[in-house]
């Protein structure tokens, strides 16, 4: 399908803003103006509508396809949340209003949404305070690490290292490194963090360890109490990567379990859309002793029930976002929490875990499941057996596309060979899961009888497997090259 730019016909316009009355040269001196037009496409409104409608049909989304993508929690996004997020009382609100005199009064509704969302997140995760500023999960990690750094600096601790298990999301070590820390990796044992491996690298220079629990293999970190104790002994903090929070709501609060800093992915656990990769939102919660270092501004409620933004926190790390994070995403998550309430959120985790175990059980005779015990909301299977006959995890993933499913996460975590990570989430029905298993079993049977047929997949998608080497070598990243 040709690009917008190729479809452009000079002179054609989609919308016509009012005509200016002055020539450009009357507004600004020639030397400050651009020499030639920018080259934006010229199209009619219908051209634009049809172009993007056709593009949308070349996409898999949760609305149209089951998306069992491990660690990404691709659950259904309630429609009413989208609807209310567009209310002009929120959508048109300028973020600088609260910085004007009596600005708080102009934004009470928005401030209440922020305040209430923070209270809910505190109760769900057992933390003392939250900041909503981080604009994505990885941004939350960075905010958390900067908060940890400020705590240690304030205490006069000399800390240079952050520990990340080998099963950690790649963002964990990246976040630690860009905040100025040396990253120390430790190997897992039986799929979980090994306290002995931790003991080997733990010293006074360790600022924190970053952990996901349940981890990326879908396993609960059974040694958690011991790990907490070990870290405390050297005044190191424990960071919780909330990517997998969907598994444990109402079953464990990470604050109670000893985590000091937490980020939550609103776009995963609280059902806000992923939008093709963004925007997200990654609020960060901290335990009491880290509260003074949280980013500014902070939202507070006064005794009369009015809400205010405060900036006078001398130990704060400063701004991590220009304003209050992705407010629009926060608003959708808040609506989701109100709608589900206490029982609903517990049911989310229970059914996510139920669905994952059901799927694991239905597949464990055809795919190797290296840690074949009760899992949390996701599990990892291995196509090592199939790969010996030439059908790799990638081929199985592509064959699933032909059946109308988005593929599971493949080749992550790195510690399992030819892995496929499945996360069905709580919103898929038993019928969908059953049909998925039937279709996946068919692919695995075909892998035995006719490996070449699986290797040729996908054939029903708008394009087949794409030449990634060519893309990197020729580097055509705009329509002009």
């Amino acid at each position, binding site marked *: 399908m040709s690009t917008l730019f190729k479809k452009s016909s000079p002179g054609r316009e989609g919308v016509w803003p009012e005509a200016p009355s002055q020539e450009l040269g009357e507004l600004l001196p020639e030397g400050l103006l*651009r020499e030639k037009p920018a*080259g934006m496409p010229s199209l009619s409104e219908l051209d634009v509508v049809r172009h993007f409608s056709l593009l949308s049909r070349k996409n898999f989304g949760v609305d149209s396809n089951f998306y069992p993508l491990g660690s990404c929690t691709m659950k259904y996004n309630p429609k009413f949340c989208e609807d209310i997020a567009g209310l002009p009382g929120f959508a048109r609100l*300028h973020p600088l209003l609260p910085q004007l005199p009596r600005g708080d009064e102009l934004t009470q509704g928005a401030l209440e949404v922020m305040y209430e969302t923070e209270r809910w997140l505190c109760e769900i995760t057992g933390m003392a305070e939250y900041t909503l500023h981080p604009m994505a999960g990885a941004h939350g990690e960075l905010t958390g690490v900067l908060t940890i750094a400020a705590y240690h600096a304030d205490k006069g601790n000399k800390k240079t290292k952050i520990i990340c298990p080998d099963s950690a999301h790649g963002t964990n070590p990246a976040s630690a490194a860009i905040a100025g820390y040396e990253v120390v990796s430790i190997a897992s044992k039986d799929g979980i963090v090994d306290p002995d491996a931790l003991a080997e690298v733990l010293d006074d220079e360790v600022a924190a360890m970053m952990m996901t629990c349940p981890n990326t293999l879908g396993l609960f970190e059974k040694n958690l109490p011991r790990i907490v104790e070990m870290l405390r002994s050297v005044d190191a903090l424990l960071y919780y990567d909330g990517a997998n929070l969907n598994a444990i709501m109402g079953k464990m609060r990470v604050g109670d379990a000893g985590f000091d800093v937490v980020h939550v992915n609103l776009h995963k656990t609280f059902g806000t859309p992923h939008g093709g990769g963004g925007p997200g939102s990654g609020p960060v919660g901290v335990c009491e002793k880290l509260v003074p270092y949280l980013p500014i501004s902070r939202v507070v409620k006064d005794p009369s029930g009015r809400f205010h933004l405060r900036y006078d926190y001398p130990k704060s790390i400063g701004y991590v976002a220009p304003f209050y994070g992705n407010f629009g995403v926060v608003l959708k998550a808040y609506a989701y929490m109100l709608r589900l309430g206490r029982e609903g959120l517990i049911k989310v985790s229970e059914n996510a875990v139920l669905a994952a175990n059901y799927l694991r059980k239905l597949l464990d005779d055809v795919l190797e499941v290296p840690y074949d015990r009760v899992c949390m909301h996701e599990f990892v299977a291995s196509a090592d057996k199939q790969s010996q006959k030439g059908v790799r995890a990638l081929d199985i993933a592509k064959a699933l596309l032909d059946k109308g499913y988005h593929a599971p996460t493949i080749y992550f975590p790195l510690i399992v060979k030819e892995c496929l990570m499945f996360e069905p989430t709580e919103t898929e029905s038993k019928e969908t899961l059953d049909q998925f298993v039937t279709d996946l079993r068919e692919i695995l049977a075909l892998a035995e009888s006719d490996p070449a047929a699986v290797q040729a997949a996908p054939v029903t998608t708008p394009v087949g497997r794409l030449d990634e080497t060519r893309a990197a070598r020729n580097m055509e990243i705009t329509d002009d090259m």
Partner: protein
Amino acid sequence: MPYVPHTPEDTRAMLGAIGAGSVEELFAEIPLALRPKSFDLPGGLSEMATRQRIEDLAARNSNGMVSFLGAGFYDHYVPSAVDALISRGEFYTAYTPYQPEASQGTLQAIFEYQTAVARLMGMECANASVYDGGTALYEAMMMAVRQTKRVKVIVSETVSPIYRILLDTYTRNLKLTLVTVPHAKGGTDFAAMQAALDDATACVVVQNPNFFGCVEDASALFAAAKAKGALAIVSAYPVLQSVLKTPAAMGADIAVAEGQSLGLPLFFGGPYLGVMTSTKPLVRQMPGRIVGRTQDGQGRTGYVLTLQAREQHIRRQKATSNICSNQALCALRSLIHLSLLGEEGLARTARVSMENARYAAKKLTAIKGVELLSDKPFGNEFAITLPRSAQDVCLTLIEKGFVPGFPLGRYYQGMDNALLVCCTEKNSRRDIDILAAWMEDAI
């Protein structure tokens, strides 16, 4: 139970297949000692009750005020087709395009977005966007630090103070020196910035139009930076970029922008869109997601995420950044917006906004004691000095339903009487006349 389809029969059957007696059994690995000390949340509400609650909250925000507030975040008209198209579930409920065959819609849209913003800035490369204009500026600075292996960054005080606080936060634990060069009556002090250049300088950072609204040409500074082996970074305003001299024409190596003004609602601070463009030699230093065009086995054109070897999921702590998302939906909004406006529509929006600003400047400076802060040319925003506190004047006008602008004393010492006033195509002459009348009364 909303959004969970499992009936009691389903649950029984699923538990049977698993071989578990109850759902609770599946959580047996979480020891009792780690169970929640409390989970004290209210009960759920119906969809209707939830909506009512949120509508009540929306009504508690000031709505319908006449606003001249900009300061980097602008209220432009968004055509209806933008919302209609962005609401397609295949777009907004999709994930990061890791399986390109099932994500050609997102991928082609990002490719077209890259093309559009690169053209707007006159640059060669663009990524699939970072969180916002501020973090884009931070990432640009870090690109320069990595590329030059130098540690000093020279920033003009005319760059958004909000963004400068952000740069401070991010670099606090790094061995970097941020040098801020004070503004000269609202203008960028190019001579002082040039004087601060040395062999340790990684980059110079300016904004155009600058925070005070002045339109400037940084070409000479950039040439001097280049001679010292430093990179040149511009933070731009994309709507005006349709008519202003491009970052590329000034010799910039990296140009970033807040993409909010391209069809995104103000939304009380986000989600926004970090536009990021560069010259070709810097592309491997660029953070985040980049889409490339290629072919499948049958020679059909298709798109993939490319140059992934720079990214966190491959390189872990050695990655160019920790960014994992790509802001695709916001980028898509801006692309649809740009497509609907087209070349002429975008330039018209810029010109009408500037005309309104000129009209407002003329009306306001006709008031006794009100003067323009700077004598430099401005875009759609300008700073004025008042005979009394801008905060006080603001307060008086807010009570009359007018937000007259942004009091600069909030971020600039000694500028308590200065006010930053912004116009877009949405500010009518009539509203500007009323603003001027109220302001005259308030002064």
